């Protein structure tokens, strides 16, 4: 083996082994309830019964399951991988403990250790206003600072949200993403479990971020969290989610549905750092509704998973509403990040900005898939779309699928797309200043990501740069 080839192989094996050590471990478990593999009306019924849900929710689930069966698998994106999903070889419901805890001391030691390793209690102490930690199907730990509670802010896991505030859930659940939206939103609606429920009262500013962390532990697991965030008039909230899973040779499925509602003048930012292991299919539907003068921002980082298909959407339904989607995707060996953004301008004088950055390395593939739709009544809209792709190595691939449907001629639309390669000249320049080729390449990649990382809270920016650094080690330039 030549030296270069050996270095490359060492580098590649390093990536996997490091994920395994840092995030890819799994716990031996003794679950409160572990169902059988496979999906049926009986399984749907069992989930709903175990959660002691009201009849209306149970009916929604059953209907959604029928919809799931009727809906075809998408015929776009990575159809080869999508068709590999064996829905009968997945666990749909695993309940690790009897009920969610409000103190880490009450969480079983092995689960607490996992979240310790992931740094969650530490982050909670230092800069978060509230934390929700989901393990398999349910949230095992949940807590929010007392001063935030006193302001009337509701931050619960979704199951608790349904139990304690059924009228709010009934009003908004599925109002932004109907079960029939797509096959995976139907699946989520049928078997959803966990996720976050947030309500911010009018005029309240949640000054510190709220965070949820999602952990899959079991093999062939299906995680279907459901999140609903309602920001009432003039309120502000920043929600952050992170996720990891053990490394297994077989695939697991993560299929979430996230609905955001920003009422008049409200501001919602939703930040995701997705770092699933490379055996996870991450098929997620995220959509927000921004009412008059409201602002919704999706800050969406995708580093992990085998296949991600996710296109955060903002529906601008009230005059003066603003939507921003800033996404970054990193596709390494055997990964496909099919990410993007959707903005629907359904009211006048609304504005949106989409910034998509993708990095493909080795045989990784990153796609930008975007839709901008401007309805007939939406005069005076402003749209800006910017897609930047960076390729590292000759086998890396990047595709762009932008769609614009514009039914109003009094709008301003800007669209820019660029694909660049890490150029030999740039690397030489950095090397001539003493940086090794790997250090130089990493610096170029970090610079490329900078418009994204600068939007993250400092702790997450550091973590994201570190993740990228791991991914870049021993890169095949």
């Amino acid at each position, binding site marked *: 083996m030549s030296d270069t080839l050996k270095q490359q192989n060492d580098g590649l094996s390093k990536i996997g082994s490091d994920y395994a050590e840092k995030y890819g471990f799994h716990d031996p478990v003794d679950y409160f309830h572990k169902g059988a593999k496979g999906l049926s009306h009986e399984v749907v019924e069992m989930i709903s019964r175990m959660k002691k849900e009201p009849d209306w929710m149970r009916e929604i689930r059953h209907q959604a399951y029928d919809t799931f069966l009727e809906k075809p698998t998408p015929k776009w994106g990575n159809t080869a991988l999508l068709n590999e999903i064996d829905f009968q070889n997945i666990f749909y419901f695993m309940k690790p403990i009897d009920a969610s805890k409000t103190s880490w001391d009450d969480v079983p030691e092995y689960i607490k250790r996992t979240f310790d390793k992931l740094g969650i209690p530490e982050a909670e102490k230092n800069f978060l206003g509230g934390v929700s930690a989901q393990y398999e199907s349910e949230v095992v730990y949940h807590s929010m600072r007392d001063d935030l509670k006193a302001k009337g802010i509701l931050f619960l896991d979704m199951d608790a949200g349904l139990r304690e505030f059924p009228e709010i859930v009934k009003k908004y659940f599925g109002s932004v993403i109907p079960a029939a939206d797509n096959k995976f939103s139907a699946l989520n609606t049928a078997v959803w479990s966990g996720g976050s429920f947030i309500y911010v009262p009018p005029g309240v500013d949640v000054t510190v971020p709220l965070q949820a962390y999602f952990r899959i532990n079991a093999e062939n697991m299906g995680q279907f969290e459901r999140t609903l965030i309602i920001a009432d008039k003039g309120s502000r909230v920043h929600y952050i989610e992170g996720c990891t899973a053990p490394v297994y040779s077989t695939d697991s499925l993560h299929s979430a549905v996230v609905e955001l509602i920003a009422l008049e003048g409200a501001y919602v930012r939703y930040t995701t750092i997705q770092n699933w292991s490379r055996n996870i299919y991450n098929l997620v539907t995220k959509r927000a509704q921004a009412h008059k003068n409201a602002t919704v921002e999706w800050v969406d980082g995708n580093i992990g998973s085998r296949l991600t298909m996710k296109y955060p959407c903002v529906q601008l339904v009230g005059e003066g509403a603003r939507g921003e989607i800033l996404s970054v995707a990193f596709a390494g060996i055997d990964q496909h990040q099919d990410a993007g953004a959707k903005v629907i301008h359904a009211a006048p004088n609304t504005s949106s900005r989409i910034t998509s950055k993708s990095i493909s390395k080795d045989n990784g593939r990153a796609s930008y898939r975007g839709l901008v739709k401007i309805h007939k009544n939406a005069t005076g809209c402003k749209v800006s779309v910017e897609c930047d792709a960076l390729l590292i190595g000759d086998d890396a691939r990047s595709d762009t699928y932008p769609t614009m449907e514009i039914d109003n001629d009094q709008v301003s639309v800007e669209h820019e797309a660029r694909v660049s390669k890490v150029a030999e000249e740039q690397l030489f320049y950095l*090397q*001539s200043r003493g940086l090794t080729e790997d250090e130089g390449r990493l610096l170029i990649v970090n610079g490329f990501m900078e418009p994204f990382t600068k939007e993250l809270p400092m702790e997450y920016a550091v973590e994201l740069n570190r993740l990228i650094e791991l991914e870049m080690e021993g890169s095949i330039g």
Partner: protein
Amino acid sequence: MSAKTPLFEIKNVHVVVAGKEVVSGVSLAIYPGEIHAIMGPNGSGKSSLSNALMGHPAYAITEGEAYLNGKSILDMEADERSRAGLFLAFQYPLAIPGVTVANFMRAALKAHRGKDADMSDFRKLFKIEMDSLEIDHNFATRYLNDGFSGGEKKRVEILQMAMLAPKMALLDETDSGLDIDALKTVSAGINRFHSDANGVLLVTHYQRLLNYVKPDHVHVMMSGKLVKSGGPELALKLEDNGYEWIEGPAAEKAGV
């Protein structure tokens, strides 16, 4: 080191770019404290020589030797050459979007020292050097060479040289694209950098830089060869008479 040992020495260097030989047997010895200038018309191979000496992968040294402090550099990657004390100020410095000048500088210093530079020492030194090169402090937080004018890029190259304090600096057409004020500032930067312990090789088309940075030796390069060497007076003669003036056996030998 004895004064008899060259700081930087190249012997019979041949450079091939894209299958074509562009430098054909150049030899040069630069002693500590010396400034040399290589002058030549466009396409004479002088930029190729500096790129090859720094270790650009597209510029292959197919024959010859090159030593820094008596140590061969030809088996080193560009970054190893840099850490060994060689520096190249680029004719066309590249933009690195998203990486600020200050962060880049810190990364480079870390690469040289093997550890992070002390923050307050770094800031102090960085400000002093920026001030002497008349670079606005806001450049520290601008992305490296991204949207910089030609003159700004050249100043930042000299800033990097000042910060990294190499033993041997190759300056490739550092004067090109500079107005007279910028030329003076940049020249002053080179003179401040230069000491009895280091060496400078100026690669330039025009004589005007040499009005401000006084070379000890001037070499004329044509068609990939040094065809004439002399003192500073050689540069003035070239200024007056142009490169056509060089004729005779040397030029014939070079195939001019």
